[in-house]
Every structure is written in structure tokens, then in C-alpha cells.
């Protein structure tokens, strides 16, 4: 269960603020109807947790936390629990969003690499989350880059611009927070017009990791619970990117956000 952060004072609202926000939100989005459900287990949205030869299970409970936050914050019909899968498993095709987390070097075999390349090519979005403790793991970082290079030799990882729709698919964000903030950016590898792989160096799953009773196991630094909230929001945005892609780049959204909200974002080129 979600535990209210002790130091999340900025997120606390008094009754007056709550009513004002609720009224505004209600007017804006006209809150949806029945709780989001799915007709069939495969139609529920699932986060895939990739199992590979290496420390894949670092930051346990993070995927579950992301599931819960998505269910609590968005209309996405989330499955009851994330799915842990091998790269060569047919169940990879139960979802288009996956997290491959780790804090050490790893190597995929040819079958795994081929399966992952096909999954990405058909539409999947994969987050490589570098869970290095004091700094991003050099071994994990190099491994992720090497594997992507082998899978897509024509493509290169590049910094995702702060103006990219990834930072406003649901929440408006300025940077990708995680348990740490080693880098103020993530890198992405494009297939066509979408990012298929995103390399995060801030240990996003570390900010979401929980123990068996639901307590967060790490304290985000340096921002504490505020930073955790920002990390959760980035996780939500990642999932919304996987399911809606550039929806928030549509003209109707840009017009409203630029003019009614006075946002200072650059329209996509």
C-alpha cells in the first residue's frame, strides 16, 4: 500500500486546496466512469520485468509499485501484478512496456538478443534502468549500449530533449527523477518516430522498490520523498508513452497547453 511520505509536506493539501483542485480537475478531465477493467487478462495493461543472466531482480517490488501508482492515478486498466518474463518467452507479447533493471554488466545470448530486437521492432518500449548505488553502474551502462548496438547497428542512443513528449505524456516534468539524480536526462534509441529503448541512469526502480509489506526500501537522494514522487511521475509518463506515444504532441493538446496554460514548450519538429 502507498505510504504517505513523512516529508512530502509540499504535496499535502488542506481541505480548501483539495476542493479547489478537485473542482478544477473535474472540470478539466471529466473524470471517467467505472473503474478501469479489462475483458480478459491479456487486455489488462502489464509491466514486464525482464529476467536475464545477471542481477535482474534488483529493486524488488518496483514494478508492483508502478502498477499500483498507475492504477491509482490513471485510467489505465492495469493487471493485478507485473509479469516477470524471459526475453525469449512468448509472454513478452502480452505487453508493450518492459523494464530491464540491473546494477552490473550483463550479456544477452543470440536468442535473447534476436527476440528482444523483434519485440522492440514490433512496437515494444524497453526501459534499461541502471540501478547502480552510488553512481550509475558502468558495467550495466556499457552492456546496455553494447546490446542495443548489436541489435540496431544503424541507430544510436541520444539524449531525450526536455521538450520531448516523454516529459508530458501525463505529468509535466522537467527531468527524469529516480532514487538518485546522476543525470538530468535519459537517452533514447529511436525506431521510426518512437523511442523503442530508453536508458535511465538514475535508478528509477530504486525509488519505487518496496519490501514485502509495502514499505519503500530506499530513500531517494538528495530530494527525499519529493524526488520519489517525481520518480513515480516519470514512471507513469513512461507507461503512458508506451501506450499513447506522441498523443500529447497533437495540435489540439499543444494549442491548449501553450495558450491556456502558458506552458513554454517547443512544438515537435
Amino acid at each position, binding site marked *: 500500500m502507498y505510504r504517505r511520505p513523512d516529508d512530502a509536506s509540499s504535496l499535502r493539501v488542506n481541505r480548501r486546496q483539495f476542493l479547489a483542485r478537485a473542482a478544477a480537475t473535474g472540470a478539466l478531465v471529466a473524470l471517467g466512469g467505472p473503474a478501469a477493467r479489462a475483458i480478459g487478462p491479456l487486455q489488462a495493461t502489464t509491466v514486464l520485468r525482464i529476467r536475464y543472466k545477471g542481477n535482474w531482480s534488483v529493486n524488488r517490488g518496483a514494478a508492483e509499485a508502478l502498477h499500483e501508482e498507475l492504477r491509482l492515478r490513471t*485510467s489505465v486498466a492495469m493487471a493485478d501484478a507485473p509479469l516477470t518474463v524471459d526475453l525469449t518467452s512468448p509472454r513478452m507479447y502480452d505487453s508493450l512496456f518492459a523494464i530491464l533493471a540491473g546494477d552490473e554488466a550483463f550479456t544477452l545470448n543470440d536468442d535473447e538478443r534476436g527476440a528482444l530486437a523483434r519485440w522492440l521492432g514490433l512496437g515494444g518500449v524497453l526501459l534499461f534502468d541502471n540501478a547502480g548505488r552510488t553512481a550509475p553502474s558502468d558495467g550495466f551502462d556499457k552492456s546496455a549500449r553494447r546490446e542495443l548496438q548489436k541489435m540496431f547497428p544503424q541507430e544510436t542512443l541520444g539524449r531525450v530533449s526536455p521538450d520531448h513528449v516523454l516529459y508530458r505524456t501525463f505529468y509535466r516534468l522537467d527531468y527524469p527523477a529516480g532514487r538518485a539524480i546522476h543525470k538530468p536526462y535519459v537517452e533514447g534509441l529511436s525506431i521510426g518516430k518512437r523511442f523503442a529503448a530508453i536508458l535511465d541512469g538514475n535508478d528509477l526502480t530504486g525509488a519505487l522498490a518496496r519490501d514485502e509489506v509495502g514499505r519503500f526500501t530506499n530513500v531517494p537522494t538528495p530530494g527525499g520523498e519529493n524526488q520519489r514522487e517525481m520518480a513515480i511521475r516519470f514512471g507513469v509518463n513512461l507507461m503512458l508513452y508506451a501506450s499513447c506515444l506522441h498523443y500529447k504532441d497533437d495540435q489540439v493538446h499543444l494549442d491548449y497547453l501553450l495558450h491556456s496554460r502558458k506552458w513554454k514548450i517547443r512544438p515537435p519538429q
Partner: protein
Amino acid sequence: MTLPLLAALEPTTERTLTFLGGGELWLDVAVWALGALVLGLTVWNHRRLLPVRRRLGMIALRAALVLTLILIFYQPAFLEERVAVHKNTVVVLADSSESMGLPHGPTTRLELERKLLERMAPWLDGLRDGHDLAFYRFGDHLADLPDLAKDPDAVREAVKAEATETRIVDTLGELRDRFRNQDIGGVVLLTDGIDTSGAGRRATLGLDTQAVLRDLDAPIYSFTTAGDDSVKDISVAHVAYNNFAFLLNATSLDATIEVHGYASGTIPVHLTENGQLVATQDVVVSPLERDYKVHFDFVPKKLGKHVFGVEAERQPDEIYAKNNLKQVIINIVRDKIRVVQIVGQPSWDERYLRNLLKENPNVDLVSFFILVNRFNLRPLSTRDTSLIPFPAQELFAEELGGFDLLIFQNFNYGPFQTRQYLPFIAQFVKDGGAFAMVGGPLSLSAGGYYGTPITDVLPVEIPPSFGAAEDTLDTQPFTPVLTESGRFHPITRLALEPATNKAIWNDITPLEGQNLVTRARQDAVTLLEHPRLKTADGDPQPVVSVREVGEGRSMVVTTDSTWHWAFKAGGAGKDPQNYESFWWNAIRWLIKDPELDLVKVKVLKESVPVGQPAQALITVFRADYRPAANQEVGVVVRRRGPGDGRGEGEEILRVPDAKTDAAGELRLDVPVDRAGIYEVDASSRVVTGRAAEGMDLFVGTDSNPEYDRVVGDARLLDNLAQASQGAVFGFDGDPTQLQLKEPQVIRVKSRQHKELWNAWWVLLLVAGLFGFEWWLRRRYGYL
């Protein structure tokens, strides 16, 4: 067809002096040196011989002897050849098109032409020694004429102004075919210079024409009235346009106006659409110009075929007024498919459909996804999120008519206070819009649509339950089954070959979850059905059903798992393109892509002359797109008046009970007895409860192409003359100036040398010279 007789002259013998002797250069030099030495010695020996007359006589005698011997050294001979020289043909082409009847000063072009032929007759007759003669008249094709010199009256009778077209270049091509591999000495062309084919409007000769001239290999001499400025006429000579334009997008049309005989002034030129004035431009006429370009920009506002006319206002004393108007048919089509996609919750199904629509540059997509719902417990602030209001009022009440297709994808209207807009959506469909409802836990009965106006336009009836319940949803996986109708319907046609299509559907990736419906509507067509689940009537639950509603169309897909056909199929090594094919087929059918009309009408010619029938082909399909054999078809033909739209105008033909043949086709001849815009409407009840309709337009025209331009264009004749080394003259030109090709084909029948040097008289000559010299020497006492 008769061909001129290619007779050869009587064979003759040609004799040429040649030398068989001689040899190497040194031998020639030696012989000539020896001769010179002999002559030199002769002069030396006779230097004191007197009198001088006797000395010169002796030297001359010796010189003659030496030259004779040298001549013998070269062995002179006559080359005798028997040769036959064939004549080539001079072709006379006389224009006998209608425009030759137009006046030219006090007479007519035809009379000028006849007089020229009479004047030419003696000259042509004089050519017979070296040329054959061939006489033709031409209009739209080549026809024989009698021999002018032998029967001038018959020629005069035969050359009339009667052909309805003039095809000068085509006539030359026909001439080339008749005289292939034969020599033509020249082409004498008598015409007013009006070529009614496309070649007549070209500034330069086309490649085909150049090839014809190369093959003819003969000079073309034209006698013409082209450029005659004695007539007064204004014509719309040409309209350049695209036969399709995009709705609400500016397009243009260019017209060429030819003005003859009007020195100065302003001529208004109008652009009309279905007889209604769209724009007017004033053409300022100057004496130095003949052709004027008029450019019209306009914005088409209605879909379908429309007749656009360019008309120059009639001026006083015009020789022919019907060439002031030219009409063309332009098909107005969508530039983009405008689609609204409204999604109740983000999902992989939504992701794939949006991506499909967004990636296509021909789709103008507006998406609205509901990203939060009332069960979300985390507080949200507009400051922190990118959520925007759902513009129900603008979308459903104000802008919906501007879209072609509305998609409700797993969307429930309830929480958005949009129930009042649902009648607008139903009306949108009845008025011609397309609507697709895609299943999911927020769709159909689960979305609370039972009893709403939207159900009136759906192809299925839904149960009254609300929300996710056993009688609204089934969560089990299944493989949909292609119905018999689905085998032929374009939506489920994933391969052209029916057997291949069936195999694809048999192997299609399974789906999961189903919105349950009560039954498919009677006038709906179910294309895919559930393999196990049944409706209230015991029929299989529809998975994909379509329906024609009023002027519009609707579709229901009772599952939110068609993304399996792309992503899961690809993962399983199957073809992920089936997803795209299915949805694009569906969208094309929903927006009534004309290619998918159930009744198609096609008039074979866009412009039909009055008096000739227009041929219409009507093709009818059943709702599942099988050919509708022996299907009753109602056909109505109308002639529209100015400003009339579809279905308006004077009815000129009604065939209420025609029947298609086994291929679902009906051919019909439409009488055209007056000029105007004709509309052919066909309707057939291939869909229960309503008639499917098709329509096509054509223009019935009484404008004579011969009079589209009443003054010939000298450019064509100049170009022909320049390319063939010919020339252009007026009808008063002198034919004797023509430089015809000499006959060139010479065949040697025999050849022999007749030697001169070994003849008896040569020996006698040499002996005589020697003897005479000997006699003189004796007489003068030199021996």
C-alpha cells in the same frame, strides 16, 4: 484501297568512257617521260628544218603518234550499262473537313481549294514523266480521289466540306503506312490548317509526328488559309485542368482563349460550376495577340463529380458561337480522411489503432484519450499534468460534421455529461458520416449505451445491462470465424484470392474478450463471428458487423483485442500486416471510398456529341460484395439545368426494372438529343430497407470540334514544312515552285566493257601515222 502503279521507264543503255590500263605511279611517270623524251629529241632533230611550217608539221605528226601510243597504253574502253529508273510518287492531299466550308473573303475555303486544284492540274500532269501521282481527300481519315488530270470534275465533286474532324498528322501517318518502303517525291497538302487532334495544338512536333516525317522522307508543301484574319470569332480553344481536385483546397484551371478579328476591347470569360457562375475574368484584347491565357483559382465545396464550364461572352458578328463554351468534369475528392478517435482508457488496442491512423499522411486525426477516472485516488493538479478538458460541446455539437469518421474505442459517454450529444452522433451517421464502436469494458452495454440514440445506428442490438457483468462481457480467448458474407466483403478481404483469404482467417491470431450483444440487426452484415458464444436468437455472437444507416455507415467490433493481429501475431512469426489490412479496409468502407460503392455507374465517354448515344456501364454488388446477378436496377437519366444539383433537372430516361447480367453488370445506351449536363443515376435494393445508389455525369455537346477553332494554326504547317524541307504557301501560291524529290531508285540490269585500244582501226591509225611520217621523210629527202 488502291495504290499508285509504280511503273518504271523503259530500260536504257548508259555508256561511260573508262581506262582499263595504266598501273603503278612509277610506270605512268616512265611512260610519260619516255613520250616527252621522244618529243624532245624530235624537236631537237628538226630544229634546222625549213620552212618552219614543215618543221611544225613533222613535230605534230610525231606528237600524235606518241600520244596515240600512250593512249593505247591506258587501254581505253566504253562501260556500257543497261539501267531502269523508277518513278516516285507525288501525293496530293485535299482537306474535306467541315471547316473548309467557312467563308474566306467573298468565297469559301473550299472554293479556293477547288480552284487551286484546277490550277495545279496541268503542272501535275507535266510531272508524269518522272513521277507517279496519287490523290486523296482527308478529314478524320484518308480517302481516295480520282486522278485530277483525267477527271477534274469528279475531283471537284469529291472534295466537299463534310468531315467532322481534321487529323492532319494522323493522315500523314496513314499515308506513311500506305507507302511504306516506297519513294515519295513530295506531299502537296491543301488545308485550312485546323487539326482538331491534340497534335494541332502543340507548339512543336511530337516525337510520333517526327517519326512519321522521317519515314515519309519527302518534302511537305502546304497551301493553306491558316492565319486568316478575315473571320471574327472567339473560342475557348483549350482547358487545362486536373480531372480531380481536393475538397476545400484551392485548385486552378487554365483556359486558352483564341480571339480572331477583334482588334481591341475587353472580353469577359466566366467560370461556372454546374451552370452556376463561380468567377469572371476580363481578357483585354490587343491586335498583336491571338491567344490569351485565363487562370481561375477556386475552392471546391462539394464532394463528387461536378461540371465546370469556361465561357467567353459572345461578341457581335461572331462566325460561330458554340465554341465559346467548353465544359469539363472534375471529380472532387477528399484530400485527407478526417478522423476523431475517442478512447475511454489507454490500452494496447488504442495504441495500435492510433499509430495506424497517425502514421498515414492521408489521415487528419484528432484523438481524445480519457487518462483519468473517478476512481483515481491520487490528487491531480492542472499545474502538474498535461490533461486538457474534453471538448464535448465543440466536438459533438459544432465540429462533428467536418469529420468523416468517428471512432468510439472502449469509450463510455456517461461520466462526461455527453448524453445530450448522442442524438447528434446518430444524426451524423444518418447524414452520411461513418461511426465505429470498438469493444472493451467501457463499450456497448458495458458502457451504458443501451437505450441511447446511438444504438439506433449500430449494426447490433445490445442487452440492457450496464457495466461489466456476465451478460455484457465474456473474457475468454477465441478465434473469430469468417462468415459467408465476410468471404466477399472488402473489410475482411485480406487477400484477393478467396481461398487464400479463407486460409489467412483460419490461421488468424486468437482474440480475447467479447462484448456480448443481443443480436445483429436484420439489415446488418456480420463479417466475423464468435466460434462458441451465441446471441439471444441462437446465432453466433457477431465480432465484426457493419450496417448502412441512412446515408452513413457504422461498424461494431465487439472486442478490444484486434491488436493481437499485429503485435502477438508478429511475435508468433505470423504476418502482422493483417491488422493494418483489416483496419484500412474497414476505414475505406466506412468513409465510402468510391471504389467500394455497391452500385457503380461509369459513362464511357466524358463528352458525347449530340445525336450519338452515351454508353453507360452499371455494376452492382450485393452488401457482401458478391456480384449481384439478375439484380433489379432502376436507372434515371436527367439533363440538368443551370444550378441543378444531384437528382435535379429534366428527366429524359427512366428504366425502372432493368436487370443485371450474371456478372452483375448492366449496359445502357443513353440517347443524347440536346446539349447539356447529363446525370445517370442507378439504384438497386441490394441492402435491406434502402437503395444503394451510384451516379456519373457526362456532357452532351453540340459543339462541332471542327469549329472549336475556326482559324487554322500555321505553326503546325510551318513545323511540318521545316522538318521535311518543304514550304508553306497561301492558296494563291505557285505550285511550279515546288522542289520535288528526283526519282532515286536505279537498278542496273546489265554491265559490260567495250575495249577501244585493241580495235582494228586503232592498229590502222598507228600504222597510218607511221607510214605517213615515213612517206613525208622520203619526200623531203630525210631518209
